[in-house]
């Protein structure tokens, strides 16, 4: 059978799997304005539950039909208990909430089913292959295509022909109208969320026999599904279908005919579509209108004498700390300083400008890889590497920012996420230079002036010094006219435009500043760690930084630093006596979004009596 036909069918198989994910994502977004980052987790959870049912009953069909039920129930519980309380507060908090759940579900899957790859057998009835033209093709894959098409048709009929479908359509067209539907709205939301989750779970079970099951399969499908709905147009079922076919085909044919480009092809498709038609093929609503950031930690107060004294005491304590702590702790604190710089840099975007970036780790990675790649391949002095890395991060963030800053809220989040995954693909793919997924290291740490960074003490003081420098520099920027403009953009972008501020330009500037500092933090991390692997720029690493900022308090500078400290301390302490640090950090994060949306520092600052000046 000719290769072309095989690829066509493979492309369709992939497209149908994507569609099962994308349909739910898109409907949920269209109706509730929430991009569920946990959607991939439900896919994974569905697959594993299906596996267990299959093993117990030895019946694949039962697994396929039953697995979506408990998964959907779980999804609806999440919606009712955790998302519903946040509808008033803004959609970003809900997105963050779903991100917290990716941790919880990942940990859950890993501890119930283990972290090894598990295989699911193709059901006997579909085990063979059929003759098509001159060749053969697996029946199971044909079955996947059929089931995907059938579900697409059923879904379409439900949306177009039923009363509930009409309500969903009305809600997607106009959120205000949805609230006009009155008491039914919460029910409708929960129902659609449940259906979306059920579709994802079904997709998970169906994909099991060809993909294999492993913790981490969630993001394998979620990123392409995101791209599908961005390309197809968020909120549109038709868009999800057309996008799935396009991305499925692009990916499959890309891998066969232009293997060197395969990983980037879908990103390329996305970039082209967004440049020519920003709302996607069938975009119903302009995505830009969807992500308002709730005001958090709006007003920065000028430092009082008392806060200056307290600050000086903290700095002094940190300066003499090395006398009292052991080497291991010293290293941990050095790492905290580096990540504190990184988190502060993200907060320029997230907390101050109101742009939730989910791809910040890419710039961190750019800085780190620059140091290590240049040192190991070209013998470049690591400090020159840091400088080059910072420049690269500035250039990279200017490039990415150029595409992203015209979007706001959740679209911005998805675009940055896609770009960072593109960077991730490049790093994994470009083995000769980056060492691929094994990572790459430098043999020896350089000196900091005359002191070798092999000494933990030197490393501590150096990172400490840079942290203080970055903190002071950023604090100055926040107090400057530029800083105030950024806060203005966060608070009310439309009004900033109406009073004549070039909002786009300032957003780009904020993006570049933030990315550049992240690049610097990456450079420091390369010196600190001597090794870097693609894990550092995976989208979940960007999510970690986001968690740090939110834990400590977005819109402040000390907050993200505190958040970085808490995050890394928890990761280290908890992982030293329990395997469940992801579960714990996920729960802490979820609790924080629910109860302390201003973060720990923000809450503390609010409680502090403010003296009238």
């Amino acid at each position: 059978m000719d290769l072309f036909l095989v690829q066509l069918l493979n492309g369709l198989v992939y497209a149908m799997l994507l569609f099962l994910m994308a349909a739910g994502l898109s409907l949920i977004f269209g109706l509730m304005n929430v991009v569920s980052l946990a959607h991939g987790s439900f896919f994974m959870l569905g697959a594993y539950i299906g596996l267990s049912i299959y093993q117990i009953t030895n019946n694949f069909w039962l697994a396929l039909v039953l697995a979506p039920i408990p998964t959907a129930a779980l999804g609806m519980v999440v919606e009712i208990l955790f998302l519903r309380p946040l509808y008033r507060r803004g959609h970003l908090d809900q997105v963050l909430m779903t991100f917290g759940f990716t941790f919880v579900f990942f940990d859950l899957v890993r501890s119930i089913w283990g972290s090894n790859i598990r295989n699911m057998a193709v059901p006997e009835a579909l085990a063979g292959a059929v003759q098509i033209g001159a060749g053969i093709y697996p029946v199971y894959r044909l079955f996947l295509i059929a089931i995907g098409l059938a579900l697409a048709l059923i879904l379409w009929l439900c949306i177009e022909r039923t009363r509930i479908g009409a309500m969903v359509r009305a809600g997607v067209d106009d959120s205000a109208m949805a609230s006009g539907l009155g008491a039914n709205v919460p029910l409708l939301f929960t129902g659609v969320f449940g259906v979306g989750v059920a579709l994802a779970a079904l997709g998970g079970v169906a994909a099991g026999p060809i993909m294999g099951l492993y913790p981490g399969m969630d993001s394998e499908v979620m990123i392409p599904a995101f791209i599908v709905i961005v390309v197809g147009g968020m909120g549109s079922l038709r868009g999800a279908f057309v996008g799935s076919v396009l991305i499925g085909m692009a990916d499959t044919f890309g891998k066969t005919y232009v293997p060197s480009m395969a990983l980037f092809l879908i990103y390329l498709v996305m970039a082209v579509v967004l440049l020519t038609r920003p709302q996607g093929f069938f975009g119903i609503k302009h995505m830009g209108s969807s992500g308002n950031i709730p005001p958090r930690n709006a007003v920065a107060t000028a430092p009082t004498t008392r806060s200056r004294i307290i600050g000086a005491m903290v700095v002094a304590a940190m300066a003499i700390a090395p006398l009292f702590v052991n080497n291991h702790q010293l290293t941990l604190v050095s790492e905290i300083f580096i990540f504190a710089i990184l988190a502060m840099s993200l907060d320029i975007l997230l907390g101050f400008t109101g742009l939730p970036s989910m791809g910040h780790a890419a710039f961190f990675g750019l800085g780190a890889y620059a140091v290590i790649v240049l040192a190991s391949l070209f013998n470049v002095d690591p400090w020159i590497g840091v400088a080059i890395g910072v420049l690269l991060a500035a250039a990279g963030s200017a490039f990415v920012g150029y595409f992203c800053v015209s979007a706001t809220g959740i679209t911005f989040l998805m675009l940055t996420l896609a770009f960072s995954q593109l960077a991730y693909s490049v790093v994994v793919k470009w083995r000769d230079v980056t060492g691929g997924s094994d990572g790459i290291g430098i043999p020896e740490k350089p000196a900091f002036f005359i002191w070798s960074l092999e000494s933990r003490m030197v490393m501590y003081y150096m990172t400490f010094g840079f942290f203080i420098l970055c903190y002071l520099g950023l604090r100055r920027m926040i107090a400057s006219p530029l800083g105030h403009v950024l806060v203005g953009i966060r608070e009310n972008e439309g009004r900033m435009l109406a009073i004549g501020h070039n909002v786009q330009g300032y957003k780009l500037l904020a993006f570049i500043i933030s990315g550049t500092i992240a690049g610097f933090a990456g450079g420091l991390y390369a010196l600190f760690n001597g090794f870097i692997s693609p894990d550092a720029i995976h989208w979940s690493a960007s999510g970690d930084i986001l968690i740090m900022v939110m834990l400590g308090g977005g819109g402040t500078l000390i907050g993200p630093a505190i958040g970085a400290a808490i995050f890394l301390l928890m990761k280290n302490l908890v992982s030293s006596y329990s395997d469940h640090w992801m579960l714990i950090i996920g729960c802490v994060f979820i609790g924080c979004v629910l109860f302390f949306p201003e973060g720990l520092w923000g809450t503390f600052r609010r409680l502090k009596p403010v003296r009238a000046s």
Partner: protein
Amino acid sequence: MGHIPSSQTGAGVMSVLRTDRLCRSFGNLVVTRDLSLEVQRGERHIIIGPNGAGKTSLANQIGGQLRPSSGRIFLEDVDITGQSPDRINRLGIARTFQKNNLFPNLSILENLRLAVQARRGHTLNCVRPVAHYSAVLDRARELAAIVHIEGEGSRLVRHLSYGEQRQLEIGMALASEPKLLLLDEPTSGMSPLETQRMIELIRDLPSDLAILMIEHDMKVVFSLADRVTVLYYGEALASGTCAEVQASARVREVYLGMAG
């Protein structure tokens, strides 16, 4: 189009704003239909019309928040059709919004300061604290006084009364030092007393400033307008002095008749 004067120079009646056969629709709904109007220097031009007549949509097209489907908008002689709102503001049109559109979590002075800063530069400076730009701060205080907002400037805007927020809207627009001030129902939702104060506030604005204003309250219209345009389903029914418009049969029929 004969009735559109080509830009007359010298003799004084140079229009600040001119729209030329502006059209805009949302799907089948036409909200602006072939609208050509002009605002002269120093003129108080008021647009009236029933709810949904397309008044705010017109303001949005002039301010750049909404793109016209066809037709052109000129500020003095510059074609500003389809420009971005910030560009249009910098070219000389400042506007207020029908629904208060401020920075509720920032202070009064910070609201005004941001608007002044856009006009008076320094915005790219990222090291010098804003507190050091005393000229900008002074101007912000001055504007608060001009729009009759008294008391502590550090109060958060969300704690202001509704009327004070309406006044601040105008202060924000004035901060841009516009050639044309575009006001969308500045007195909407105000008590009679507040309305009276607003009339005085607008009357005290520099007399050479061109003002295009949308208004519901006929009392305000009669006390301020040099020229009135009646909008009805996106169309200009009549345009002229208060007396001329009141005399128009069609206006009586569809609009004043309705109001009375």
